[in-house]
């Protein structure tokens, strides 16, 4: 699936929740299910310091594609992270770096990305793009 298709699928999924509470319950589920990082990945380099919740992000390049793993000390944040990772993981740097991540807005979680929330999510998206840019540049260099 393309990044766009994955996003549309999530939007479809979320469309059944009319109530905030249901939506958040689902996010909590996703958060709980997110594969935990191994201890070495909880490193200072991977930490994105938010003011109210903290996020860790790690990336790995396999066969031209980037695979992300992440964690947070807040479960709902973790749920959103799970969605984000699902959307971008397994794509090429070029695909990721230019991707328009519209689904967060569409499923009504925009405010969670407010710079004002300082929950680390916005910084995480920035860092995802930075990884993509860096890997992209690297692969071009090689090529």
């Amino acid at each position, binding site marked *: 699936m393309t990044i766009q298709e994955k996003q549309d699928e999530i939007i479809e999924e979320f469309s059944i929740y009319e109530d905030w*509470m249901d939506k958040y319950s689902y996010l*909590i589920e996703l958060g709980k299910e997110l594969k935990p990082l191994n201890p070495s990945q909880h490193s200072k380099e991977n930490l994105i310091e938010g003011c*109210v919740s*903290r996020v860790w992000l790690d990336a790995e390049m396999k066969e031209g594609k980037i695979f992300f793993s992440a964690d947070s000390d*807040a479960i*709902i944040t973790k749920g959103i992270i799970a969605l984000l990772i699902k959307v971008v993981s397994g794509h090429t740097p070029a695909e990721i770096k230019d991707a328009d991540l519209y689904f967060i807005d569409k499923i009504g979680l925009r405010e969670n990305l407010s710079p004002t929330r300082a*929950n680390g999510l916005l910084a995480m998206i920035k860092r995802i793009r930075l990884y993509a840019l860096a890997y992209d540049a690297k692969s071009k260099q090689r090529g």
Partner: protein
Amino acid sequence: MFDVQKVREDFPILQQEIYGKPFVYFDNGATTQKPRVVLDTITRLYEIENSNIHRGVHHLSTVTTENYEEARKIIARYFHVENEKEIVYTHGTTDSINLVAFSFGEKFIHEGDEIILTEMEHHANIVPWQMLCERKKAHIKVWKMDDTGCLKLDDLVNLITEKTKLIGVTQVSNVLGTVNPVKEITQIAHKHEVPILIDGAQGAQHVPTDLSGIDCDFYAFSGHKIYGPTGIGVLYAKTKWLEEMPPYQGGGDMILSVTFDHTEYLEAPFKFEAGTTNYIGAIGLGAAIQYLRNIGLKEVFEYEDQLLAYATEKVKEIPGLRIYGEAPRKVSILSFLIDGINAYDTGLILDKLGVAVRTGHHCAQPVADHFGIAGTVRASFSFYNTFEEVDHFVAGLHRVVEMFQ
């Protein structure tokens, strides 16, 4: 009798729904809402009277200046300050403390000197002193608190040395709600001839504050936390300090004469009010304080105490909930964590239920560090909150527990 329903009518913002739920505002520690009389005052000023103060020959300038100075008197009276020239308008608590850190610091703090601060200070009463200490090669000594969130007077006595040049204490902890015995602390400070600064940001609006009785040297608070506008605050300082301290900012309206060679300053408070002040904010603050007096300080404060007692009782029902701050004397600030549930998650869910609380370290990181936590959920009540709102909030917490288990 204190009639909360009547009082609530004065606060337009409270009559709304958030996500279709009645709005419950429990973030009063961050900022308070404004009674209609404050909004009306601001509007009236801008619609009829606005004019830059001081030195104007024209009518509106005189009117605005008189309102501005009248507000200073209202503020002085509220804090039992006889000489309103000891009331300096600033832009908030942070600005007030920075003013003292600079102006007092420049003149009186030297290499090797010590400043004592409590472990429960807000960053506003830590960082300015750190910056000063770095410039002057002075040191901060920390007056620790115990696990209930209380300071012991004996500990202070042990910290004071000949090098102690200032003691900084918050009147009320913004995280724990502790009301510190600022009068006794001031007596100890003065016995050792050390001046004292009290951070009144969370005290001015919740406990009766008689500055002449307390006898402190400096007192700082923010207008926006005492039902006034943003961008205005106050520094109270004893005349002797105002006279001896050099000005903080330079500019218009604080000078007697300027040449490129030499500048002479006006007397206090004007010496410390450089440039065009937030005069509309100042007059609005006067209106806010007058409003508070009109509904009755005693009634307001007692009611807030009742709210806190009720809320404290109720949240204890929540399984796994721990309260941070168990001092015998507290204001209506309730910090807590629920076992295994992140503060941010708790806050997010409460928000969706229409309840506004704050989460995090509340700009007092050393307090969180003391307890080895990242932060807390903080519900802070004001006199316009109700017991029903507390019930609603507690029901929300039950919901949170359900969702995360």
